[in-house]
């Protein structure tokens, strides 16, 4: 009895301490537990319409995807919850519009071919990572054994995608109307002429990993100020950015080798995607980051065609440079500034057809 009265306060202290301890460890380090008390994401249907337009350019036209409409609809009722169309640029962009959705969402993607200078120019939207049936492969019949899943000028097609379990990540989409013998399909290789863009599927529980002050840390995706997407081709960085505007994204086209800006201490997530024939080696001077899926710290990364490399860092005061250090790429201008200042407003690079 004496013992039990003495142990009672200790009892209580331990009880309280353990509850606080449990609470702290759950919150800061282990995302698996986080989902037990966060609101689960309710899947929605993204009804997206893109078009393909030409960008006339002496010496050879470029081709680009354009956002026509992006509606977020309730899956049960079909009612439109949000119209995101005005968050995008109004014209065609290289890279194409960045589509940001959550795990569990469904996408219905309609594509118009608005190329005017030729009668035959089949294009499509082939996507990586997200789930889709063989009828939405966006390849030619000689590949998918079903039918030609692209459209000639004036035509329209719809693809169906589902962000099912295991699809969280950043995935490319691009034209893939390339046959077994590519020449003669007129024109071929439009992925090389600007028809590429990005699909980001965020984790439903809202976390990703970042290197913060030299330590791997989970950060909330909601706390990321902007997603910077750069496609590394054989001759340029083509970028756009999605600025986090209270949960909705504002999409800015940054075009070729832009000046990327961020506000000091902001969380910035970089997505790098390669395309073409060359391999590139990416560096962001003055920064280190986590090798994806590990806690290893790296400061450069080789990126091969259609490989994806994503990392999140905290913007540090001062000027930095993003670049491809392969000699023939660097010496022909594949680099740009990453500047951290008060406003953090990026400056687009050269747009094809201007100047």
């Amino acid at each position: 009895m004496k013992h039990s009265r003495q142990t009672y306060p200790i009892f209580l202290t331990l009880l309280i301490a353990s509850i606080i301890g449990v609470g702290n460890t759950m919150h800061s380090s282990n995302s698996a537990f986080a989902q037990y008390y966060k609101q689960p994401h309710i899947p929605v249907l993204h009804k997206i319409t893109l078009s393909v337009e030409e960008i006339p350019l002496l010496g050879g036209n470029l081709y680009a995807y354009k956002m026509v409409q992006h509606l977020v609809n309730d899956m049960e009722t079909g009612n439109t919850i949000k119209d995101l169309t005005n968050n995008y640029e109004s014209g065609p962009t290289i890279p194409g519009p960045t589509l940001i959705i959550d795990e569990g969402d469904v996408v219905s993607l309609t594509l118009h071919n608005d190329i005017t200078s030729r009668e035959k120019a089949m294009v499509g939207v082939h996507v990586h990572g997200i789930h889709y049936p063989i009828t939405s492969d966006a390849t030619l019949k000689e590949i998918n054994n079903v039918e030609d899943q692209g459209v000639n000028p004036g035509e329209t097609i719809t693809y169906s995608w589902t962000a099912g379990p295991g699809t969280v990540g950043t995935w490319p989409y691009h034209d893939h109307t390339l046959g077994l013998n590519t020449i003669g399909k007129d024109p071929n290789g439009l992925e090389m002429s600007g028809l590429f863009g990005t699909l980001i599927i965020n984790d439903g529980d809202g976390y990703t990993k970042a290197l913060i002050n030299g330590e791997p840390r989970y950060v909330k995706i909601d706390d990321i100020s902007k997603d910077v997407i750069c496609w590394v081709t054989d001759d340029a960085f083509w970028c756009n950015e999605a600025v986090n505007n209270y949960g909705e994204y504002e999409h800015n086209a940054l075009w070729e080798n832009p000046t990327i800006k961020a506000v000091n201490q902001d969380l910035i997530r970089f997505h790098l995607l390669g395309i073409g024939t060359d391999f590139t080696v990416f560096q962001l001077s003055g920064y280190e980051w986590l090798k994806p899926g590990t806690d290893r710290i790296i400061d450069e990364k080789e990126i091969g065609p259609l490989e994806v490399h994503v990392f999140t860092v905290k913007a540090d005061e001062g000027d930095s440079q993003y670049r491809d250090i392969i000699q023939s790429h660097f010496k022909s201008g594949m680099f740009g500034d990453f500047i951290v200042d008060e406003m953090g407003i990026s400056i687009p690079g050269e747009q094809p057809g201007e100047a």
Partner: protein
Amino acid sequence: MKRNSSNIILALFAAILLTSTLPTALYNSLDSEKKLADSNPSGHPIIKAAEASEYNNQDYYDNDNYDNMYSGNGYYDNGYNDNGIDSKKHQVTVKIERLQNGQYAYKMVKHIVIDKNGPTDLTDRYSDIATIPGPSIEINKGDTLILKSILENNEVKVDSIKPDEVGSIEYSADDFTRELGLFGAIIVHPNSGTYDYAGLEKGLVDGEIQKINSDDIKKQFVLFMVGSTFWGMEIDENHLQTPLWTNPTLGSDLGDLVQFHVLGSGHDHTFHLHAHRWLDPGTSDIIDVKTIHPGDSHDFIVKAGQFVGAGHWQYHCHVFAHMEAGMMGIFNVGDKNSNTQSIPGASPYDQASPSTLTESNFLTFRVTDQPGTWFNNVANLDSVLPTLGGSFGIINPGGTAHFVMTDTNTVHTVTSLLWPKGAANMPFDQITGYQGGAIVKLEDPGLYVFTCKVHPYMFAGAVVDDPQTTDNDGNAAYDIGEELQLANGVVLKTDPTLNDPTFGVFTSLVKTFFKVTNLNNWKDYMQTTYVTELPPVNVILGGNNIVNLNILNTEEDLTGKLFNPEIPGLGEVWVDTQFEITEGKSKPGTATKINTGTWEIERKVSLPGINMNHPHNMWTDKDQNVIYQTMWFDQRLAVFDRETGEFIDVFNVGDAPSHVITNPLSDLAYVALNGEQGVAELELSDGQLDLLRIIPMQKSGQDPTHPHGHWISADGSKMVTPNALTADSTIYDFASDSIQRTIDSTTGEDTSTGVVPIATAIRPQGDKYYVANLLDSTISVIDLDSGKLLKNIELLAPLFDSDTGNDGTAHALPIQTPVDPTGKFMVTANTLTGSISVVNTDPNSPNTDEVVASLPCDPGCHGANFGFKDLSQIPEQDRDNTYPYYAYVASKFSNVLTVVDPDPDNDGDGSDAVIAGRILLKEDDNNPAISSTYQSDDNTIALDGTGGQGVLAIPNPYPGWVYNLPPFYTGMLTMEQQDPLHLNS
């Protein structure tokens, strides 16, 4: 009791505390496991079957005698190794075999596994023929593998490995035979012992990263990436292996667990599979594209068709040029439990008729840097039919043409130059030069010729022969096809009875093919006759006309063809004898120096210290002190001392540097990157080269131009490039750093110059420039200011016209085309017809931009540049009537330099052009024209004097360079030669 209960309560709270921190602790431990895996990221060693090791001891490795392996030696005394896990020893013997088509492959001889129960023979798992990839050797982590290989000469090599990681490892040859088939996989599976929980693989299945029991994997697919082809093999659940050969269809059922092992044996690739995603080993990252460099391996598990359904899901390399070159196959996911079968692809074992000489329907060319046979049929038909040369092959309809770049330091395309009109899978091409290979099925009978758009004298020939069609005696006769299509759209008729003008082009192309690819058909001016011999085979031409190819054989009398020009030249001329084979190098080429005063060879520069590779084009600095030398089959620019021939510096500038020229104002050097998108700008200072920048000749995102033979205007303001792969030209303005592409003069829209523009020349007056279009056989005339295409000079079908002086001679495939320092004449080397054409370029001439003279050249007529005549050797009163220059012309498949005088009487009309001399370029002891002061840094042992391409005369006669010559040189020149533009008069 109460004490006990309070202890229990304390214990309970301790437990709660622990469980709150346990997830973190657990997570941290998982992290550290990942850290361990990441600490050896490129982990896998390459076990090379051709290397010796400590196990090369016959006592230790005795066929069929395993008694002393485990009993009495203490190895398996207790049946367990240190970890307490059953580990085994594998003794595997493979044999190297040469296949019918000339490729190589490993064959399983015997696989014995020894564990505590004794030896078991596993040889039945494997195919009983040599396969590509070689046998897939499956072992478990912790096992020892002793791999013995028996080489072709019966030499034995032994290598061993004891892997401590799960995954796959390549075993391979360590020379070019690796890329021709000598590669295979060692697959290390987790150990299923009790202490090692990793009897389980990891993968993304059912939407989560999970552990998967190896026993649940239905099928394994091994895919090797090499060249631009997948070579595959299937392993079923009972470990039985089936070779699937090239770009196979992989069969699986919906929901089956399938494991892929993707390995690289040559060139750089990225592997992608449609509609699936998987765990990147050693991380928690989910991916669907993975870089595969040679020696890399990538293993992953998927549930076939999970969440996406059945279908023909494409797998392919995502490197764009490789996609264009055919690097793809199908992962066929069929319905659940339907037992979907894999379908093997084309293989060297595909049988063909005896007329193919190999009886294999799989033709493989390796791409090397060896002159003549840059595309080399690995079956080596020379021994069977010597006149066939090294670049020809024969298959039946439905056969495969396959290419691998095994020994080349540069980029290429594999492009169809000629094919039977309407043939399936033609045309075949890529938009950029690359490193890799190509594979294409040829369904229709006829003649096919492949080339490289970057190096357009590389040829690979294939006849697809229908074995049913024979000559009148029932013997093999090879189908050529009724009509053949050229890459530039022109259709050639092969029926000789039609008298169609294109028939002449057809026979020229066939003769040229066998001249280039058979070294015995190259022209040696030290012989008395020049014989061209074609293979004596019967071919079926259009209209079913059967002829023997040897009717195209020719013989030319060479006596008296060598002679020196009467008027000596001033200074020296350098010729890139690009094909010379020397003792000190593995790559070909030298630069040969001729003293034009004496017409003797004074020097050859080989640069063995840097293995100079195909020296193609030269230029000099403003003081004429150094020679800049490009290496076209490489990536480097070299500089050497002009006077001493000594090496100064070398710099890696980019793919296939073709031509070099300086800006007459800044003296910076500009090198065209013929394998890429632009021109490199370099500075030479204190004997060191520095790359300042690369100037793109197109806008970002446009097809890469691949410029070849550029030029810079006399006033240094503009540079022009012939864009070999985009069929147009770019004008670069130095001051504004801007580019202008060729436009139509009326619409102002894009226009093409012609197919494969290859060389340019700017008129020194700066008003217009010329672009030689190799395949179209035209020369475009373009306004230098606006980029407007003014005219295309037709070379191929000129009419006889006494007004223009055009004598109706056809010239085909023009290459270098310099305009003389006065701006009055253009001399063009035409490579197909082996002829030189002279065009009047003076706008005041009555026949401006017309061909006014034709002269004979040699096979592979290629390079040309002007140089000074030494007019001090002529009486003063005759100097005004003497044209002050020579045009020096070099040819690839002969060993002379041709000296042309376009206007001997200096009247401004080139119709009286003559051959002024021919100079032998051979180092041979019997060559009387070797100077007594001859020096060289190496020893020529073959193809002496051949490969003539770049030509450079010193001192440099062209405006604006001539205006900046040091006084030492101007002192030797006449007023006319010093100031050809009359700027100072």
